[in-house]
């Protein structure tokens, strides 16, 4: 039965500030859920702490609103225990690239088959606008007492270095692009990052909706605003790493990712930067050691006999520890 948007929304009062980019992300995510052919009962949304975190409550799927920065390990635990779940982890930029940066890196190394969406607004929204790790050096958003003294982290490059096998960026108010990107990320077999540029009208007065849509720079010909975000895939860029590519080809692509992801200012790249479906997932790697893993993952195992006794045949195992007969 096809799902309608109303099916994947809860009826709770949404308390984000009006005009917040989070609304765009929520709508795109929920539309993606209705368009994907995934059984909605298998979908679990994990979120972190920050304004973004409430998305788990607004969405009518299993929703686990976790701790600040810890979304990824919670989500990976569930996926490991039951690989049949469709796990979508959602974080903030402070949450995921700041306090949770360690988990961000190690999730790439594991490459579990899941999706990670980051609300990248340049600020710590929920704690009233401090600089987040993606705010640029010297920028001074509304509530900073002094200009930001740290350089910005480049999430695309960080993900590449960490081993993410699907790396994309989208924009909160480009509904169609974001929705399609989320669908592609979910369909990708492996760890997928979608970094979403998200205006925070309350605290980020630099990277505003007007900034992204280029209201300050009208097209000389049409006098219409010229949006800053451009879709790299529409400009001829191909993110795919294929089996046929030589190591040199892969290196070249890697350098390209670095180059494009560094663009900022008047041209801001969005789209899929990198996609490599040939890296074994963590699930594959476990299968190499535990051949029954996918049929009987931790959450599906029989641990109990009819008489409620333990199903494990330990005496067989502890022969190696037993002496005498």
């Amino acid at each position, binding site marked *: 039965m096809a799902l309608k948007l109303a099916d994947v929304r809860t009826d709770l009062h949404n308390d984000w500030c009006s005009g917040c980019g989070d609304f765009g992300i929520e709508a795109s995510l929920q539309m993606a859920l209705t368009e994907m052919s995934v059984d909605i009962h298998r979908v679990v949304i994990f979120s972190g702490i920050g304004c973004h975190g409430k998305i788990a409550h607004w969405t009518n799927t299993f929703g686990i609103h976790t701790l600040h920065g810890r979304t990824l390990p919670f989500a990976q635990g569930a996926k490991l225990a*039951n690989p049949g779940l469709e796990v979508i982890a959602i974080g903030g930029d402070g949450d995921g690239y700041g306090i949770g940066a360690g988990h961000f890196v190690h999730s790439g190394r594991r490459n579990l088959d899941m999706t990670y969406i980051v609300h990248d607004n340049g600020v710590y929204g929920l704690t009233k606008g401090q600089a987040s790790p993606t705010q640029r050096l010297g920028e001074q958003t509304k509530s900073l007492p002094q200009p930001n003294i740290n350089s910005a982290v480049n999430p695309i490059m960080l993900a590449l270095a960490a081993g993410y096998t699907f790396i994309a960026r989208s924009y909160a108010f480009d509904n169609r692009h974001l929705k399609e990107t989320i669908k592609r990320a979910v369909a990708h077999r492996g760890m997928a990052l979608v970094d979403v540029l998200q205006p925070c009208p309350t605290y980020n007065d630099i990277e505003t909706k007007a900034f992204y849509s280029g209201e300050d720079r009208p097209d000389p010909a049409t006098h219409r605003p010229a949006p800053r975000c451009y879709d790299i895939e529409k400009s001829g860029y191909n993110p795919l790493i294929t089996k046929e590519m030589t190591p040199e080809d892969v290196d070249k692509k890697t350098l390209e990712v670095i180059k494009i992801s560094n663009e900022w200012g008047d041209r801001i790249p969005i789209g899929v930067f990198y996609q490599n479906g040939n890296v074994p997932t963590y699930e594959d790697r476990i299968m190499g050691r*535990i051949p029954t893993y996918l049929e009987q993952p931790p959450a599906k195992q029989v641990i109990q006999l009819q008489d409620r*006794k333990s199903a494990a045949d330990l005496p067989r195992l502890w022969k190696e520890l037993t002496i005498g007969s």
Partner: protein
Amino acid sequence: MSSKTVNELNWMIGGAQGSGVDLSASAFARSCVLAGLWVYGTREYYSNIKGLHSYFEIRTSGRQIRSKVEGVDLLATFDAETLVRHADAVTPGGGIIYDPALSQTPIEKVDTLYKDEIKQIQGRLAQQGLGSDANAILEEAKRRGVKLFAVPFSSLIQEIAKRLETSELTKVNRTVNVLAVSVSLALLGLDRRFMDESVHQAFSASRKQKLVDMNLAAVERAYGYAKEKFGEGGLEVGLVPIQSGPRMFVVGNQAVALGKMAGGCRLQTYYPITPASDESEFLEAHENFALKEGATKDGKGSVVVVQTEDEIAAITMAVGGALAGARAATSTSGPGFSLMTEGMGWAGMNEVPVVITLYSRGGPSTGMPTRTEQGDLKFALNASHGESPRIVVCSGDMEECFYDAFRAMNYAERYQLPVIHLVDKGLANSNMTILPPDPSMIDIERGKLILDGGAKDGEYRRFAHSEDGISPRAVLGLSGYRFWNTGDEHDELGHINENPENRIRMMKKRMTKLETADREIPESEKVSFYPAKGHPDVTLVSWGSSKGAILEGMALLEARGIKAEFLQIRLASPFPAQAVRERISRGGLVIDIEQNYTAQMAAVIAEKTQIGIRNKIVKFNGRPISRDEIYESVRQVVSKPEANERVVLTHGA
């Protein structure tokens, strides 16, 4: 042989870490076990991989034993440091095996001794008019009636190399451990076949026949040498094989791992830390295991073990796994547990069953990472901000490590909360022969887990209020049972709700589960009580690994006419206040015994029962309590309770 004490002795071996001493210790222990004897072994080592001193004591007996004792009957050394450090622990009538080539070694040349230790030893020797080298140490021992057995290890090694016609002297050098053990066993009169078998078992896993042959040659040469030079040896202790049934020879870590497997743990996360990681590594080494007939078609079971990036990930990943329906656990020690506290609070808030095995070691901070301590009781009871329920189980011996690990998995799921299983290093790294535990003693209890679907979305309330505080629990992915979780205060559906009345009901719901647990968990799982025959003179109260020393110390006290009884507290939360109150009010002098500075359990008892315990025996030098320390210190307290309110134990090298 007439006046020999048979099958009751304490053997020690020492050497630089990484030189194979651990192997010698287990070869000795294994030989004894193969001969039908029971053993209890402790391991002391520095936080270091190679070079610093480590030593093992193996106590062996014809009956089951559960503690460390003072005094060494036979000390095997092949380096100067072991000799210098431990010769004074050898009892008169006991023996020391040493390498005569090292006897000239000046004490100050043993550079792994701390400077103040060198001064102390030199001072002691000077007082006796002795020199300042290994020889002086030997002379000192001899004067005390200790027998000396010179074993020129390097010439024996050369003989072995010659016999095997090998030029790989560095490899043959490694047999020094086997030589030392074999000479020991020969002196103790134990037939050679046990050591031969022990060598087979130790080296056959390596699948290198050469290695087995080399070590068997070492056994043979050592036995031969001992016979030629020392004859019967003249020691006052000896070993004789006895008939025994099957016994398990386990380390505490392994007992916990086995208990978890039996208890259905199928996801274990960890970040490496001493003395916890051995447990996870054991699980990983046995990740595929057999199921009982009839469990599944293919009979295959498995546990997924994940080494995480840190302990925050370890706890939160385990919690994620538990939400999906796996029985999940993690394992750590103090520093890692510190990092877990926020995640544990989240599990408490969202009523997630998860087990944390907390191996306590010397704290605070990095403290003494390889030494034992019971300093984390109050931390376990109070960890995490705010007030959230948790069950805290404290194991006192190997059998309890197994059964408690199993039960912890049950408690977690029945009461839907984090369970902390406290085990101290003294148990984790000790090995012991026990009767194989019987997993069928315990049922797997999954509490209010919803196994099958049937509900319609919109009906299910994950945190539905109930009399006992426990709500039916669905897992992620179960059709019809959509739910939400949040670390924020929430309503029955799991959505954020800060309404003051909701807050009161939810706090009460979560805390009520502890009352339910307190009501349902049988007293036998909360405390163990060992009554005296008749009116007790003294009631000892303790918990954790002090148990073995206390039980054996009590037997010595009784022989001296002091009737002692023992209350072992096994469940620290919910605290069995009534059971404790009754047991410590039987009229005997009450003494609290703990391996920490502040007597934490005594403080908990005071808080929960309003009964203050005046007399305390504590130990916090990082070394386990011995049977003899219990015996002596309890006698001291009993003789003059007013003058001995706080006795601090100091033994151990």
